[in-house]
């Protein structure tokens, strides 16, 4: 079995160590004897969604945002919307998460239209939500996800989208409704850096299973030696619970 992973804008959306998620997905496939190819698709390169099983979109700096929006408007946005509806698996983080929504409105009222693949929108506020955080995730049988958030945008989910989890410590989507991230078809979206997947291996495997099953039908993943993963996860979980 193999997965073809597409890393969108790896040279631009590469803040906060998000590329570690791609490394994690790739390693966890290989450790199970499966193949994983990673292809970067950046500004000016055409995106053919049919060529891939799993898409990763990270967060970036504001400076390059115009470059991206122009590039997305040149065809990639349509491909991404179609791929989402087609049930392709996506992991989108922070800026990438916001970009899948309808728009971003800055705190001084300027609106920037995004891809519109997910029924959600983001509004900027001057105060950033920054810090280690934790949320429970119903799809992970009671396991909590730990990570680090750093965003000024407040994201609000529409009726067609579910949250990825419920905030236990930290701000999450908007600091108000206790939701964190978004789930829609096979899209996983979250504010969590950290890096997210390495120390939340169950979430990594859930995403992999999702992508593998879309391509191969029912798949069961053999368990791996996750001692170091668990240590990194548990030390942060303990620390947040003691805080």
């Amino acid at each position, binding site marked *: 079995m193999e997965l073809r992973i597409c890393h969108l804008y790896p*040279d*631009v959306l*590469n*803040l*906060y*160590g*998000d*590329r*570690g998620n791609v*490394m*994690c997905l790739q*390693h966890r496939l290989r450790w199970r004897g499966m193949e994983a190819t990673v292809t970067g698709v950046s*500004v000016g390169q055409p995106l053919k969604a049919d060529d891939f099983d799993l898409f990763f979109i990270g967060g970036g*700096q*504001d*400076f*390059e945002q*115009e*470059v991206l929006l122009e590039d997305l408007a040149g065809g990639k946005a349509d491909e991404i919307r179609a791929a989402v509806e087609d049930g392709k698996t996506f992991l989108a983080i922070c800026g990438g998460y916001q970009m899948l929504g309808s728009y971003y409105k800055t705190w001084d009222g300027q609106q920037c239209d995004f891809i519109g693949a997910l029924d959600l929108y983001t509004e900027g506020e001057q105060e950033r939500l*920054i*810090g*280690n955080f934790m949320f429970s995730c119903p799809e992970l049988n009671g396991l909590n996800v730990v990570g*680090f958030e*750093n965003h000024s945008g407040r994201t609000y989910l529409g009726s067609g989208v579910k949250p990825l989890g419920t905030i236990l410590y930290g701000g999450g989507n908007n600091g108000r409704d206790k939701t964190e991230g978004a789930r829609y078809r096979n899209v996983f979206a979250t504010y969590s*850096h*950290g*890096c997210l997947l*390495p*120390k939340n291996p169950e979430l990594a495997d859930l995403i992999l299973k999702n992508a593998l099953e879309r391509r191969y039908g029912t798949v069961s993943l053999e368990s791996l*030696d996750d001692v*170091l*993963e668990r*240590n*990194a996860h548990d*030390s942060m979980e303990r620390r947040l619970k003691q805080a």
Partner: protein
Amino acid sequence: MPNMMKLRVFCALLACRAARLGLRLLGRGGTDFPGRVALKLCPNLLGILAKNVTTVIVTGTNGKTTTSRMIEQALADSGISYFANKSGANLLSGVTAEFAMHSTLFGRCRYDYALIESDEAAFKAISRFVDAKAIVLTNVFRDQLDRYGEVTHTLDNLRIGVENSPNAVLCINADDSLCASLADEVSNEICFYGVNVPVYAARVQEVSDAPYCIRCKHEYTYDYVTYGHLGGYRCPNCGYSRPSPKVAVCEVSRSDAESSQLRFRLPDGKELDALVNLPGGYNIYNACACMAAGQVLGLNPEVTALSLSRFECGFGRMEQFEIAGKKLRMILIKNPAGCNQVLNFLRNTNTNVLFTACLNDRAQDGTDVSWIWDVDFEQLTEMGDRLTAVYVSGVRADDMALRFKYADIPVEKIHVFRDNKSLIDAILAQNEPAYIMPTYTAMLNLRNYLSKTYGFKQFWE
């Protein structure tokens, strides 16, 4: 000064010294708190103390401390009366405290020159009070995004600081497209410096912190890259390109585990050989920045060149310790660009290496440890058997261990230590040359342990 003001300055200086003395008696090296006390009593204290002092400010993301230590040696070797904020106190309060400690209680500085390393975010505040003669901008890289924000934000802070310093001559790294772009926005006299040749035989895979033109957002092309986003850049769209440096490193004839041998080209066209007694390609940049500062200050370049071969490195900046005949080098890490340069350095050595990383996540380290995933630790696996083991420690040791696992370091080579003693004992039990890479507070903590246990000097001494 009116009498009331004199009294105020006197009280502030007295309080600052008392606070510092109190901390020393407690065995602590606090440099920030005394400054805060003084500023509370006299908010303009720095302006008053710095008034008649010729001040050189060194700022930027990476290389501030090492560049300052090089310039310091050049000042000393030139017979100039100076003081420097050596202890790493580089915020407004710490810099104020340093000026206070080097002034009389009546507010007169006892030295002609002040050499000030300034935090890049604090620079705009410090520059409001100090009329610098020269400002050295080392570079701008992504650093502790939870604290400094994006690179363009850091650049804005530097610009504001320069605007506060209309009389300063700027020494700007021509190879950094971000820093060099400031030249168009200010009217200061500028001395560009740069490295005309590659500095590493082999380099890590790095993400560029500035792939798109700062002026028009078109992608740059490069004639050559030294490291990170530094090198000979050119924007094919708007024509923005690396300015020609007045002070240049035109040749690197040798760069090994101990030092680098290089040749400068000076503004008058003369060439000058120099030995830099710290290894690593990034220290070639620091040496070049020092030579540029020396030019601006009117120092004899031959004296400056000699200073580069004999300066004392800053704490934890490639600092070497010898314990029971065994050599350790401590190399501060704080962001992907700096950490990648250490890996570049290690990759270009040829001995076995025992590698240690100590990761803390306190405010001064950056509370977000995500950046370790942007570092190309995969380079370590390419060292093969030359890498004998990887030790990790610090508050976030478990995150660090996990990072190494995903860098394909065999897990049996990865060892986690929960305290300084067990870590240092384990390092000393091995025969390999040891390189310890701690984040800032982990470095202070480890240095403190080494000082107490083996009698090395404390960071404030």
